[in-house]
C-alpha cells in the first residue's frame, strides 16, 4: 500500500542530535522492525514517519510523494503507541471510532468498519468497556483495531508489547504478524527487544546513537552482522567476543592473544594480519574440549539449564564473558577451568577502531 523512503533525515532537539543522516526504504507490504536500545532514535524516526515530529532536514516520501511537511492524519498512517495508549475517558468503541471521526464516512459505514475491525482482532465483546477496565492484552487488541479501522497505508507500532508479560507478548506477537500478512499493509514496528525483532520482522533496521547500523533480513542481521554493535545486540545467548591479533606464523595465520592461539581456517585464512582485531563467535558454534593448543581456557562462572540445552557462562581472556552452548545436564564446579574451541571459519572479525566488520572474501557457511 505504501512504499516509504527516508532521505538523509536529520533531527535535533537543541544541542542533541537524535537522528543523523538516516537513509532507509521500507517496501510496500513489508514489516520492518526498528531495533535498538533506548535513546537510539528509533522512536523519533517513527514519529517523523508519522508526522508527529518535523525532520530538521531531509525528505520523507510515501509512494514517491513528499510528505515531509504534511500533517499526520493526511499521511493516512495508523499508530499504536507505547503501552497501547487509548483515550482513557472513552469506551473501546468510541476509541476506535475516533480514528474515523475526521473522515467523511457516513455513520453507518463507520459502524460497519468498527465492527469489522473489532471482529478482525476479536474484541467485539470489549467494545463498551473503558480502557481502565481492560487488561493489557485487551487494550493492545483494541489499539490494534483502532489502527486497522483506518485501513491505513502504513501501521506504525511503538513498542506496543513492552508492558505485557512474556507469555502474552509471545501470542500477540504472532497475532500481529499474522494480521499484517493478511492485510498486507506496510508496518513499522519499533522495539528494543531483539527476540521480538527477530521473530516478527521481514527486515530489521538496527539503530544506535541516531544512526542506522544495519538493515536486512533477520537471517542477514544474525549471520552477517556488519558492526560490533549489531553482533552484540542481536542473538540470544549473545555473541562471544575475543580481543586479539591476526598473526602470520609458520603454520599459517592465527588469531592470538595471551591465552589462546586459534588457527584461521577456511575463509578466515584470507584475512590480512593486523595488530588489533575482535573475533566474534556465536555460543552454539563453540564446543567444550580437552586442553590443547587451539583451545581457549575458560573459568566457569555459572551454568544455565534450558532443558533442551545448557549454557556455560565463563570468564574468558581479557575478562570477557564467554558463553558456550552444551548438552543439557552438563555440570562443572563453579570456578573450575574448562576448555573450549571453535572453528575460526564461522567466526566474524571486527576492526575495534571502526567497529565495523572486516570482510572475508568468501562467505562463511552458516
Amino acid at each position, binding site marked *: 500500500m505504501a512504499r516509504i523512503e527516508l532521505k538523509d533525515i536529520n533531527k535535533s532537539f537543541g544541542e542533541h542530535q537524535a537522528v543523523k543522516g538516516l537513509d532507509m526504504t521500507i517496501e510496500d507490504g513489508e514489516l520492518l522492525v526498528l531495533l535498538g536500545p533506548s535513546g537510539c532514535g528509533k522512536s523519533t524516526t517513527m514519529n517523523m514517519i508519522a508526522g508527529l515530529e518535523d525532520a530538521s532536514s531531509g525528505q520523507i516520501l510515501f509512494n514517491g510523494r513528499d510528505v515531509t511537511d504534511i500533517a499526520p492524519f493526511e499521511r493516512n498512517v495508523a499508530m499504536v503507541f507505547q503501552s497501547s495508549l487509548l483515550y*482513557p475517558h472513552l469506551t473501546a468503541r468510541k476509541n476506535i471510532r475516533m480514528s474515523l471521526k475526521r473522515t467523511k464516512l457516513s455513520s453507518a459505514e463507520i459502524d460497519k468498519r468498527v465492527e469489522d475491525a473489532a471482529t478482525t482482532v476479536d474484541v467485539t465483546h470489549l467494545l463498551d468497556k473503558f480502557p481502565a477496565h481492560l487488561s493489557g492484552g485487551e487494550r493492545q487488541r483494541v489499539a490494534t483495531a483502532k489502527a486497522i479501522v483506518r485501513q491505513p497505508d502504513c501501521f506504525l507500532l511503538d513498542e506496543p508489547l513492552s508492558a505485557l508479560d512474556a507469555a502474552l507478548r509471545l501470542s500477540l506477537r504472532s497475532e500481529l504478524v499474522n494480521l499484517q500478512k493478511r492485510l498486507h499493509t506496510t508496518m513499522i514496528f519499533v522495539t528494543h527487544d531483539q527476540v521480538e525483532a527477530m521473530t516478527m520482522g521481514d527486515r530489521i533496521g538496527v539503530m544506535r546513537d541516531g544512526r542506522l547500523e544495519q538493515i536486512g533480513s533477520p537471517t542477514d542481521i544474525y549471520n552477517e552482522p556488519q558492526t560490533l554493535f549489531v553482533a552484540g545486540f542481536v542473538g540470544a545467548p549473545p555473541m562471544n567476543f575475543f580481543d586479539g591479533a591476526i598473526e602470520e606464523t609458520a603454520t599459517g595465520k592465527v588469531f592470538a592473544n595471551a591465552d589462546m592461539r586459534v588457527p584461521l581456517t577456511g575463509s578466515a585464512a584470507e584475512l590480512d594480519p593486523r595488530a588489533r582485531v575482535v573475533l566474534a563467535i556465536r555460543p552454539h558454534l563453540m564446543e567444550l574440549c580437552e586442553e590443547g593448543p587451539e583451545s581457549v581456557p575458560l573459568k566457569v562462572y555459572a551454568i544455565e539449564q534450558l532443558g533442551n540445552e545448557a549454557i556455560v557462562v565463563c570468564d574468558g581472556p581479557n575478562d570477557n564473558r564467554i558463553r558456550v552452548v552444551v548438552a543439557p545436564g552438563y555440570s562443572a564446579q563453579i570456578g573450575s577451568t574448562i576448555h573450549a574451541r571453535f572453528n575460526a571459519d564461522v567466526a566474524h572479525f571486527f576492526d575495534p577502531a571502526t567497529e565495523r566488520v572486516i570482510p572475508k572474501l568468501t562467505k562463511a557457511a552458516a
Partner: protein
Amino acid sequence: MTRKRFSIWLILAVAVALLWTFLPMYWTIKYAFMTKTEIASFPPLSFPPAPQLASFFNIFGFDYTLPDGTVIPASGQARQVMLGLRNSMIVSVIVTTITMVVVLPVAYVFARLEFTAKGKLLAAILLSVSLPPVSTLIPFYAVYVQLGLVGTITGLVIVTLTITIPIVVWMLIGFFRNLPPIEQLARIDGFSRLYTFTRIIVPMARSGVLVASVIAFLFAWNEYVYAQVLVTGSQAVTLPAAMSGFLFQVPEPAHLAASLLVSLLPPFFIAFFLQRHIAEMNLV
C-alpha cells in the same frame, strides 16, 4: 501488617483525628443553637442545654418564638446576609468559570509544550502567588476609586481572579504533566489542537479540572480581605463581609455561628463529594 482491621490504637487514632477535625468547628457552631445567656455563661457550656433554631430564622429575617414565648427578633443584618449569600454565589461562580476558561489552556501550554521564555513567563505567573493581599490592597483601592469599581461585583471578581489564576495555573501544570502523550494519538486521528484540547484533554483531565475549579471556588467563596475593603456595606457585599457584622461591635455569637454554618455548607458539600479526586491531583 495489621492493615485490614481496627486495632485499639487505630480506633484511638481515628477518634483523635475526628476530634481534631470537628471540635474547633463544633465549639463555635454550637452557639447557633443557644441563647445569649447560654453563650455567655461561665464556665462555658459544652452542649446547648436547650437547642433551638432561632438563629437560623433570625439571620434570614424571621422572628422566632421560643417555647417559653420569648420572641427572638430577626436580625437587621438579614438583608445583608441574603444579599451576601447571593453575591458570594455570583462572584464565586463567575470567578470559577473565568478562572477555568483562562487557566486550563495556559496550564496546558506550560505543562505540555516547549517554547522559548517558558521558564521566565512561568516565574512571572508564580511570583504573583507570593504577593500578599495587604500589599496590593491600597493600590487596588486607589485604582478602583478612579475606575468607579469600588463596591461592585465586577471589581471584586477582577481582584479575586488575581488570586485564583496563579494558584490554579500552578496546580494544573502538575496535573497536566502526568497525562499520557495523548496529543500524539489525537494528531494521528487528525484532530486540531483546539479539538484535542477541548474534547480530549479537558475531559480526560476531569479530576484535575474538578479539583482546580473547587479550589478556585473556595478561594472566591472564602475571600475576605479584599471584600472587607472593597464591598463591605455596598450592594456587592459578599457573605464573609456581611457575616463579619456579627463579629464586631455588638455581640451576636449565635447569629455569627449560624451564618458561619450556612457559609460552610457549599464548600463542605463540594469538598465532601470531590475529595476522592483531590488525591489524583498530583502536585509533583
